[in-house]
């Protein structure tokens, strides 16, 4: 019996469809638990789908660049290449809100003249607001609930039924307030891209995660192995208390050291920029170049409201408000983008952990870690890319850089140059890497 792979919760219950960005595996490939199988795009954000268990990829149902329902089965992991039977494999193509419909079948149905889009919309979990609330209170995953209404909508009574018959879905027990117990284990590092070539090491910013590098990481992955670390309390990394900036630097350096990279091109954004700088300062021989995108640590000023607001935001609406602070062009923060971003932060435990970390690192609304001296000590080629309309950090901090650091101060760009000016940012980084 093969395991069907779906985007599952990563797609977020708000998503109706997703786009296959890249397959990292082919049919017949053996995979270990945690290996990245493919990258999908929901809204404008990229998400890696990992293997839940070891096995062999026995079927792939969706082509690159195709748009499929969020709940569609994307591929199968079997015991061997011939193992293609799976639970729910006989499910009808349309009218089912179960997650067991292969994407190819849905796509085929979609191409058929009749009911061209019905399949897509019916694949979203349709549940009444009351049912959603009850399900989340009871820790029931809506995907395991059957709708009894002819409307196809999951209603309250279905949740009541499910909470009696089905056990609560593992891992989704309601999070109580307060800090979770510290989780052990190393930071999560996602690897993708070419096997040869100089490695690229990416460090994201506060309240973000390794997915935020999309699509920059994909471009770089064409010719480099790309490593994206998730900071503690972010993305797929463990949640634990961070006692200060130095603690954080140590964690990132441990993850970097574990990879044993040589001549790495390190790129960091915001808080990740400060960490990248600290990393380069302490591992000068391992770092070939440094790109700092709106980096922290170059001055005391930081938008404290932003730090606490974004970490806390428990609703898409409030998150959207803070996402808008990050960018100059507000239209970038459209509804799908917000929903994708929110889906990545849906866990209350994650938000609580980040809030706490934000309070520790940016106590009194101040960046108390100063890396200006480190910047002056650097001798690897370094670029700072910063938007002059940044409302989170003060771009003028860049002016303290020594003469050998290249400054790219972009007009009409805010705090996220790689999102707001992706081509320009990629061009600057590629040129820097090539120059070495």
């Amino acid at each position: 019996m093969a395991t069907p792979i779906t985007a599952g919760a990563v797609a977020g219950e708000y998503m109706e469809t997703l786009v296959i960005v890249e397959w990292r595996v082919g049919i017949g490939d053996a995979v270990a638990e945690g290996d990245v199988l493919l990258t999908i795009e929901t809204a404008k954000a990229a998400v890696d789908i990992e293997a839940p268990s070891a096995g062999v990829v026995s079927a792939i149902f969706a082509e690159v660049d195709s748009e499929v329902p969020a709940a569609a089965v994307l591929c199968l992991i079997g015991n061997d290449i011939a193992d293609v039977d799976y639970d729910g494999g006989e499910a009808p193509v349309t009218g089912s809100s179960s997650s067991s419909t292969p994407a190819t079948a849905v796509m085929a149905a979609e191409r058929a003249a009749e009911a061209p889009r019905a399949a897509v919309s019916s694949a979203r979990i349709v549940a009444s607001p009351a049912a959603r609330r009850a399900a989340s209170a009871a820790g029931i995953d809506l995907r395991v609930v059957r709708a009894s209404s002819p409307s196809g909508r999951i209603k309250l009574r279905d949740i009541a039924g499910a909470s009696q018959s089905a056990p609560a879905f593992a891992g989704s027990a309601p999070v109580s307030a307060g800090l979770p117990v510290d989780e052990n284990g190393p930071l999560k590092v996602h690897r993708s891209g070419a096997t040869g070539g100089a490695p690229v090491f990416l460090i994201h910013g506060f309240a973000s995660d390794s997915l935020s590098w999309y699509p920059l990481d994909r471009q770089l992955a064409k010719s480099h192995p790309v490593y994206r670390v998730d900071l503690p309390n972010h993305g797929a990394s463990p949640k634990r208390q961070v006692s200060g900036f130095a603690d954080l630097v140590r964690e990132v350096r441990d993850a970097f050291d574990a990879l044993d990279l040589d001549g790495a091109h390190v790129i960091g954004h915001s808080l990740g920029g400060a960490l990248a700088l600290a990393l380069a300062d302490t591992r000068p021989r391992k770092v070939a170049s440094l790109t700092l995108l709106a980096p922290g640590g170059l001055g005391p000023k930081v938008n404290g409201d932003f730090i606490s607001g974004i970490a806390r935001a428990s609703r898409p609406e409030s998150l959207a408000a803070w996402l808008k602070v990050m960018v100059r062009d507000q239209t970038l923060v459209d509804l799908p983008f917000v929903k994708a971003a929110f889906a990545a932060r849906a866990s209350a435990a994650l938000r609580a952990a980040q809030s706490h970390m934000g309070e520790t690192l940016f106590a009194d609304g101040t960046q108390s870690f100063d890396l200006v001296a480190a910047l002056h000590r650097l001798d690897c080629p370094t670029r700072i890319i910063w938007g002059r309309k940044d409302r989170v950090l003060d771009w003028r901090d860049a002016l303290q850089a020594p003469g050998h650091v290249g400054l790219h101060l972009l007009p009409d760009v805010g705090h996220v140059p790689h999102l707001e000016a992706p081509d320009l940012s990629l061009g600057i980084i590629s040129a820097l890497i090539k120059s070495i």
Partner: protein
Amino acid sequence: MTVMRYAEALNAALREEMQRDPSVFLFGEDIGRYGGVFKVSKGLRDEFGDARVRDTPISEQALTAMAVTAAMSGTRPVLEIMYADFLPLSLDALINQASVFTYLWEGQVDIPFVLRTQGGGGVGTGAQHAKSLDAMVCHIPGIKVVAPATPADAKGLLKSAIRDRQPVVFLEHKLLYNTRGEVPDGDEVLVPIGKAKTVVEGKHVSIFASSKMVIEAENAAKLLAKDGIEAEVIDLRTLRPLDLDAIRGSIAKTNHAVVVNEGWTFCGYASELSATIMEHCFDDLDAPVARVAMPDMAIPYSEPLEMAVLPNAVKIAAAAKKALA
């Protein structure tokens, strides 16, 4: 308690308030000598004289504007507009006069007048004499709108409306005038504006209605009961300001809402109710709010056509069942 007809209850309220307060006066078409085409002001001219119970020319637009300024200058006018269908003639005075000055002039003036009118279909009065234009007056800020369904509420609310400091549009229904009900005795029994009333308790679906639609909703509840469905019927009584607590409380219990109004569907009063429920009770909803209202068209005269377009108990029950499915 005395059993009275709805029209008699209104008549009693007018009489008592006129006796209590000499600044209350009535005017409108055919209300004096004839006692009003629905006989609501019957006998009042004889009792209070034709200065305070005044027949007017057919001049709704000016009458309404005059009610506004008469109210600003010391009297409490009660204006009867014979049919709600003529409210559009009053709208300029309501929208551009009555609703603005208390605010603009920082409370220097109160505008205590009542505009009574009646609407609704069902008796073949045709497209210009059968409409329910609740939404038009409910759209206007600063104006209260009530629509009682029973003789007791008709009396208690009319008395409250006459004593109110703000303009109140008082919506009656031509098919309610002859309905009977118990009315509490005593001239100080008032029904507060802004309070809904649960007329049938139930736990499966909440039906929100006003005026004659309350009767339809009660009948719908009886139909639903045959299928084991316990509908709760809320008589809104006041259309603006809305009794949000009553709405929230009922939906928290039933998780299903059917909103009923005899007016047009599009941008109608039922739409406002639906939006309000969506805003305040979203997480309690187990199905989309169902609207039962008039189709968006002129009301036809012929009986089978008119009956087909009017909201009724059967349509309400069907909407409730669909929501519960």
